[in-house]
């Protein structure tokens, strides 16, 4: 039986309700949301709106107007980088960022944006004091992930928000690894922009994602894609109101139907309960790995300071060989390598070989973890 520990890449399996919602959309709805006045178009718009409302509830947004849908978190990050930063602006990023952030920022640097990468600890933690030292006049934004996709390290968002706002800096948070499995409160924390993917802990299908924008911030962030929105059809200028400003073209309504059902599955269990369960299993994995000779865990080593993402290396064996052995001999699916985050691996000292990454999901069981630990203990080193 397959043990799937690659939920940081995409979650699997998905809730049955997610697949049923997508089938239902295709069989009984199928209209283009907001484009026509007929029943099927309106039904499709209801689906999209319901998913938007659920996300607002999940993320602590005061209104679902602040939720924008994109194809994935990467697209949303590109909207923020390209729409917010201008030549001459200074931007900060943590030394643990995924390439979804680093590549757009490096390209922005080529256009004259000044970038400072703030180093993190060897456990992948960003110290607000280091951020404070890197701030200078003209610093416009701080990009930081909520949890590392390599080590699971949780960043101190509240302290970073206080620091950023004290200097008029926009806090831009990549929540790809936490939305759906770690409580998030954009309003209470003071997050200005938050990027989420639908197909990981939110239990939606691939091709869904988006962002939260603090109300009013849309005036400072230019849209990436312009076009038809189903609104203001008489005018050839892009609407300025939310969420239409950023949602041109036919949306992935069938995907959003699935995402809404995926989020329902989470809300039914409660994010706090999901977090507690995942922490317990992560701690079990960490303690088990610590008992296996030759295994080195990278990251905080404490589940209360991590999302359910654990990276490790095995002495004398490459990450790809370890992952391959786990897959071939035990049908345990992990991810080896750099996880699209070379900056993070430079921070950890695991560049260029990378690590083996086990990432937990809402369907991961204690038996999955114990079987994986037994398998690892039995691998030749």
């Amino acid at each position: 039986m397959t043990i799937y520990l690659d939920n940081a890449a995409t979650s699997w399996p998905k809730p049955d309700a997610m697949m049923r919602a997508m089938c239902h959309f295709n069989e009984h709805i199928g209209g283009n949301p907001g484009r026509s006045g007929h029943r099927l178009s309106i039904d499709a718009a209801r689906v999209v709106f319901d998913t938007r409302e659920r996300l607002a509830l999940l993320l602590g947004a005061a209104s679902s107007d602040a939720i924008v849908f994109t194809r994935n978190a990467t697209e949303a990050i590109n909207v923020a980088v390209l729409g917010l930063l201008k030549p001459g602006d200074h931007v900060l990023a943590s030394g643990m960022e995924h390439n979804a952030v680093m590549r757009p920022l490096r390209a922005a640097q080529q256009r004259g944006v000044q970038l400072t990468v703030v180093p993190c600890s060897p456990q992948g933690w960003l110290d607000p004091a280091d951020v404070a030292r890197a701030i200078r006049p003209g610093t416009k934004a701080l990009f930081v992930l909520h949890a590392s996709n390599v080590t699971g390290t949780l960043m101190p968002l509240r302290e970073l928000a206080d620091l950023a706002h004290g200097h008029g800096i926009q806090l831009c948070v990549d929540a790809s690894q936490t939305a759906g499995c770690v409580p998030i409160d954009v309003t209470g924390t003071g997050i200005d922009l938050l990027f989420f993917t639908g197909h990981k802990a939110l239990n939606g299908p691939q091709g869904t994602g988006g962002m939260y924008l603090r109300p009013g911030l849309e005036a400072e962030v230019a849209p990436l894609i312009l076009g038809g929105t189903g609104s203001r059809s008489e005018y050839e200028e892009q609407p300025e109101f939310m969420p239409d400003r950023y949602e041109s073209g036919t949306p992935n309504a069938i995907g959003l139907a699935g995402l809404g059902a995926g989020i329902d599955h989470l809300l039914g269990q409660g994010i706090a309960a999901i977090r507690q369960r995942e922490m317990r299993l992560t701690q079990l994995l960490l303690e088990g790995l610590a008992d296996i000779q030759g295994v080195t865990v990278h990251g905080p080593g404490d589940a209360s300071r991590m999302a359910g993402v654990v990276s490790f290396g095995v002495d004398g064996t490459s990450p790809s060989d370890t992952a391959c052995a786990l897959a071939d001999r035990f049908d345990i699916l992990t991810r080896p390598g750099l996880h699209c985050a070379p900056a993070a691996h430079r921070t950890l000292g695991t560049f260029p070989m990378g690590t083996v990454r086990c990432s937990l999901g809402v369907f991961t069981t204690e038996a999955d973890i114990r079987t994986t630990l037994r398998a690892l203990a039995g691998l030749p080193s």
Partner: protein
Amino acid sequence: MPLDPDPEYLVALFPSITQVMRSERLLIERRIAHQLVPTPRRLSSECGVSIRFLAADRDPVVQALGGRTTLLDIRPMP
């Protein structure tokens, strides 16, 4: 919920389908009879869907939607 074909209807106009959806939910919660209809072209080009309701319900509709959604206008249904 279909309405009687009585003559006096008003139509609420919105900037986008998101606001129509939010308004629909608010009206359902308050049990105010209404119907989503294609926006009469002579009234607006903002959003292709509007909400039709009985003229007698104007005050409850305004109260239900006020401050919770972006309502552009309320016009007599042509």
